[in-house]
């Protein structure tokens, strides 16, 4: 198994996340696509950590743990915001939430 396969896998997953963030209308689905992107970053980190086994593996794993923690925090806050928006507007389709557009 070569390092480049893991890096290309992570890049592909990140691009899939980009497509999801741009195309989806439901805010929860956009959050799911963001989770995909953060997951891709984690795969990249652990891949590099395994490649630099002797020097950086522990640091890569610690970094990945921080990414997972911050992703959980961001998902929690995002859901709270979405619920508050739904309570006020009865819709979470992001193309209908345009009261701050020009």
């Amino acid at each position: 198994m070569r390092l480049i396969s893991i890096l290309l896998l992570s890049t592909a997953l990140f691009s899939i996340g980009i497509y999801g963030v741009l195309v989806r209308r439901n805010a929860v689905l956009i959050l799911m696509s963001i989770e995909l992107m953060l997951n891709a970053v984690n795969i990249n980190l652990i891949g590099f950590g395994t490649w630099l086994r002797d020097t950086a593996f522990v640091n890569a794993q610690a970094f990945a743990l921080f990414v997972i923690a911050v992703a959980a925090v961001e998902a929690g806050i995002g859901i709270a915001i979405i619920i508050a928006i739904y309570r006020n507007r009865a819709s979470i389709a992001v193309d209908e939430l345009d009261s701050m557009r020009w």
Partner: protein
Amino acid sequence: MSDQQVAQLVIFGVIAGVIIFGGVRVVTAQNVVRAALYLVLTLAATAALFVLLLAEFVAVVQVLVYVGAVVVLLLFGIMLTRAPIGSTPDLDNKPYRMWGFLAGLVFFGVIGFVLWRHFAEAPALVSSAPSAGSIEAIGRSLVTDWVVPFEAVSMLLLAALIGALAMARKG
């Protein structure tokens, strides 16, 4: 290639296929709950990949936190915002599909090209040697080298807890 390397390659191929398939179905499913379940598939396959790369602690934390908490939170969000149950045709911004695909393709092309230039000749991952005391090393590094980010993440979690409570309560 030795038998172990062939086995590693085959397992990596299967896991990568499941990850990409799950990811594509997350962003193209026409059913909100099914998209969440495909996300579970993707995250669990990523945990399997971490186990393959001998990062077992991160794999277990991924299953616990991502699959066990984040996806459950997303499903609660789906429930509390009365997302339509069943297949709905208008989950995508259809005019944006082409541009979204183009953006993803351009990103993959640019980053993939740069990575290929630098790492295509990197030797095969030698993940055969078991790391001695790796979990102890992570724990030790979290409270010595990374103690400041560790405490900062604790404060972040506290702030997020209070903030989410303040935002989502009635009135």
